[in-house]
């Protein structure tokens, strides 16, 4: 046990403590009561001024933003929703059914001039005569007048004229802040998106993962810059629109396709062939170019020799849809002529499935069905996050893919290895 020596404290006794307490409380009361009026302290005006200034500074950008929003909104009001009626335009293959979304529009677009609308090919899902729901709510039939394969932009002729003033366009530059219009007409809201990079007539966007194909992108002055293609990219409006108008003036012909995927020949092949040409790496087995097979070397289109990939593609696009054309190919050392009937390139335009992380390298529908052991008349809805489209599978690809298909009204899901 420890003994503690307790020192006598300075303040002892109840009376002392009570006295002290009363005295202190009195001091506090007196002090509080005798406080001088909270008169303007020196420098009060100077203190308030910077606060007011700071507030004004804070509010200035807000005012600016509101102005921009209103200007951008004018542009957004010209946007429209697309409804694609598949029934009227038969697609290339019966199995190439689009993913139907009755509740949402297939895509969007924007009225650029009195009776012209601009949208992207992937929004049409192969339809050449979509219907357009305008800002006013009225539904108007439309017809494709021109198609730019490079950018994917499509010029529509609207049956019902809607807007008198033409929408002005501007060239986008990397780093531009653009406003993407969500929703149509008066209900359109704007969300900011950045232009990350420009490559030819395509722009890659940052901050735009879920843009519906054809969503118009405006700059802060309400000028049209581009239209989203649905896969984090957009098609540049500014130089393309003029080209589309010229194309539309020239005639009703739309760029064609043969459902082929072409590639530049490698060095060895080029050395053997002498002049350069294009090598077929994939041919849609149900497509117009099904008589060609992978490995064929394309030497001529429509009777004219082609030496460059670009040239071959341009010539194929220039073929008239529905009219038979001749191709010159080299197959296994022999040169032979092949007859093909091209279809409009638009028929192949497909929409990436939103929110599913679209992938570029997926299967074709027939292969997917075969791999999933489903009969050929089943309809493929989705291959690994992407609607079935005319893109070649990457050679040597062995990862598992997810195939969703519809057969007699029922949906099947299968994981397949291509």
């Amino acid at each position, binding site marked *: 046990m420890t003994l503690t020596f307790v020192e006598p404290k300075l303040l002892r006794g109840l009376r002392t403590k009570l006295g002290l307490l009363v005295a202190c*409380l009195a*001091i506090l009361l007196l002090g509080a009561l005798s406080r001088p009026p909270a008169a303007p302290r020196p420098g009060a005006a100077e203190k308030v001024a910077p606060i007011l200034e700071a507030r004004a500074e804070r509010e200035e950008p807000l005012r600016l933003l509101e102005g921009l929003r209103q200007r951008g909104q004018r542009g957004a009001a010209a946007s429209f929703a697309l409804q694609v009626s598949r029934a009227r335009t038969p697609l290339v293959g019966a199995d190439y059914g689009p993913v139907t979304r009755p509740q949402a529009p297939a895509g969007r677009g924007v009225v650029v001039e009195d009776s012209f609308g601009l949208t992207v090919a992937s929004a049409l899902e192969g339809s050449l005569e979509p219907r357009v729901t305008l800002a006013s709510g009225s539904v108007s039939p439309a017809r494709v007048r021109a198609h730019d394969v490079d950018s994917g932009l499509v010029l529509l002729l609207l049956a019902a004229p809607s807007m008198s003033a033409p929408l002005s366009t501007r060239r986008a530059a990397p780093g531009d802040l653009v406003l993407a219009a969500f929703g149509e007409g008066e209900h359109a809201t704007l969300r900011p998106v950045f232009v990350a990079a420009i490559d030819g007539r395509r722009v890659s966007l940052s901050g735009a993962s879920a843009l519906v194909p054809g969503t118009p992108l405006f700059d802060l002055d309400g000028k049209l810059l581009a239209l989203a293609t649905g896969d984090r990219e957009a098609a540049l409006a500014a130089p393309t629109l003029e080209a589309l108008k010229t194309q539309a003036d020239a005639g009703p012909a739309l760029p064609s396709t043969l459902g082929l995927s072409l590639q530049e020949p490698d060095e060895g092949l080029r050395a053997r062939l002498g002049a350069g040409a294009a090598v077929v790496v994939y041919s849609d087995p149900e497509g117009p170019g099904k008589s060609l097979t992978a490995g064929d070397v394309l030497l001529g289109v429509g009777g004219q020799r082609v030496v460059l990939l670009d040239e071959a593609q341009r010539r194929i696009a220039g073929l008239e849809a529905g009219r038979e054309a001749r191709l010159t190919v080299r197959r296994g050392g022999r040169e032979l002529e092949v007859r093909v009937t091209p279809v409009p390139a638009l028929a192949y335009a497909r929409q990436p499935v939103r929110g599913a992380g679209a992938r570029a390298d997926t299967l074709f529908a027939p292969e997917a069905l075969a791999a999933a052991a489903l009969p050929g008349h089943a309809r493929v809805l989705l291959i690994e996050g992407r609607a079935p489209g005319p893109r070649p599978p990457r050679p040597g690809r062995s990862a598992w893919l997810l195939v969703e298909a519809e057969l007699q009204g029922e949906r099947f899901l299968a994981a397949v290895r291509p």
Partner: protein
Amino acid sequence: MNEILSVGLILLCALLAGHVTQLLRIPEVTGYLLVGVAIGPSAFDLISHENLRTLGFLSEVALGLILFSIGSNFEAARFRAVGRGAVRVALYETSGAFLLVLLGLLLLSRPLAVALLLAVIAMETAPATTLMVLHEYDAKGPLTDRLLALIAINNMIVLLAFGGISAFLTLFGGAGEELLLQGYRALHGLLWTTVGSVALGIVMGLLVDSWAARAKESGEAMMLAMGVVLITVGASRALGLSPLFATLALGATVANTSHHGSGLLKALGQADPPLYAAFFVLAGAELQFESVGALGVAGLAYVVLRVVGKLAGARIALRDEDVPETVRRYLGLCLVSSSSLAVGLTIQVRSSFPEAAAPVTAVALAAVLVFEMAGPLLTRLALVRSGEAQTEPRPFEELPDQAT
């Protein structure tokens, strides 16, 4: 980062810093401060300015507890032994720093208001940092006794002087109000922050006294002590009093009325470490490292003159005193640190004298950084050299000075 996350991060980083400082043989406080700097907005910005603002109350609470514990050293019987000497030293060292800094800045042709305010801020010695180093090394001895008393008195003198200088500047740099009203306002401000704050501390202290006998368990004692300190700090803020004075007075009252004071302090001691660690990490995070570049001639003069003033003041005050040689030699070194109070005064300058705020803030905050880093190291040096550090293992190159 949200506040809860940042508090957790602060505690763990502080713990880590504690381990590292033990290896490096530097005071924990320095480690906390460095960690604070590292995770604060100056460096990695894990703790943002926003976090610092919301966590500011933690610092206030910790400072309240620290001053409470310093105040509780003011027991009458103990104070009589060192008190008079401490008052004398405090007066000398504060005036030394004040006069040298004032003259130096005036010679560098700074405005009178700026020179006066900086000179007052120069007088301050950090209570928290010093107490923390004393605790860490379990310091005991004549130097430690004097140091504790000295710092409390130093802080009171600083607050009084700041009140006086504020009154002076308000009176003579006023905005054309009636002289009488201005004078009254200045006087009332001075009395209210001093006498009023002490009165509040005493009232709260008496409350503790009447309750402490019933709060016997250490948990209860902790709740009582914590609650009273929080109320004192909060009430001071609400009433426009000085939390510093009030908590000091609270500690002193408890020490002089109640036999349970030491029990309360012990109970608080169990709760303190995380709070103190957070306090210093936050203090470190608030240090603006980039400000050192802007120190300039005035800043350098301020730093040098403050140190010289304090050392010389302490030396002169102790010249004829009957004190051990270690005290004479090393007390001055323990007075170099500077921290929260100086920052607090700077903030007050910013709101009360906006025209002088920019130069005062620039110099004072940069200097706080220098002193906050150097102070604990110097205090540790003094404690080790004087042989009052108990827990510090002593390598032979640091043998206590045998001069006594």
